[in-house]
């Protein structure tokens, strides 16, 4: 291979462009390093906060599950019957008397800690679409939200003649 010797000015120019290129590369690496640090420190913070939110979500799940299984004696006239909260919720949809009992019970159980709410069918459908839930409508099911770190609410679906969703959310 034959390399022709260039004149000195050309050689200086070439060296200068190499030095400028090197400085540019170093500068870019520093920028990338700063940006990557900023990005990774954010995700680290996110990872630290996730278990706390997940723990709150677990508490809501267990508490709501227990609440729906709680038995209550309903007296009507001379007859009294033991029913579960889940059944009481269904009854409260058709009779306002039961709604009062339900509100009292929910207040006793969750009053200071959680907000208990029964969603209307429309609200439930909106939530289902928003969350992308795949629900088997044949049995009571605790709906696990795919992103508990974003939506920290527990929902429970109760099968009945209409779709009933129960929502429990920690008070802020």
């Amino acid at each position: 291979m034959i390399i022709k010797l260039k004149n000195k000015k050309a050689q200086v120019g070439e060296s200068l462009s190499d030095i400028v290129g090197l400085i540019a590369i170093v500068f870019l690496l520093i920028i990338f390093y700063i940006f990557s640090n900023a990005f990774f420190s954010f995700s680290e913070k996110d990872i630290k906060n996730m278990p706390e939110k997940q723990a709150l979500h677990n508490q809501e799940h267990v508490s709501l599950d227990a609440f729906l299984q709680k038995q209550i004696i309903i007296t009507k006239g001379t007859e009294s019957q033991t029913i579960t909260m889940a059944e009481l919720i269904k009854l409260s949809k058709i009779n306002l008397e039961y709604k009062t009992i339900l509100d009292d019970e929910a207040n006793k159980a969750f009053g200071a800690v959680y907000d208990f709410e029964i969603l209307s069918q429309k609200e439930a459908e909106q939530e289902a679409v928003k969350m992308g839930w795949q629900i088997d409508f044949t049995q009571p099911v605790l709906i696990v939200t795919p992103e508990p770190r974003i939506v920290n609410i527990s929902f429970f679906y109760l099968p009945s003649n209409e779709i009933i969703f129960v929502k429990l959310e920690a008070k802020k």
Partner: protein
Amino acid sequence: MNKKAQLGHGITWLWKFMILVLVVGCVVAIVASHYSKPYDIRYSEAETLSKKLIECIAPNGILTQQVTSDMVKNCFLINDKEMFLNLTIDNKQAIDTIGLLSLSSLCEAKKQGTKMKYYPACLDSSYIVLKQSKMEFSTVKISIAINKVEKNI
């Protein structure tokens, strides 16, 4: 090729090789600096333990009749030297505390805003569960503190 040209060629090649080493070295240094950072997974561990414990003492949200220390110890593997566990049912001490009591004091200090370099991960959970009769609720409070500082910080 004359000697001067050969020398020039060698210097240029060395220069380019140095740039390559610098770039690759920097990329390796950045990746290594990020991936060698330890992730603090103690909070995840505390959350998982709390979940496991409540599933163990109150399966399906119904509290087991008698909660004992042995029962709790059988729920999961407890490392006495690295963690602290306290369990209260309806504000009454359900079992003797398990593990290092000093971790509980550190958690209290952390809650009060004391700044520490090496601190334990603390998690307090409160669950509403049903008593055996299914007619009344009980409030189960679980406090977990995990030390494992060397592995996580």
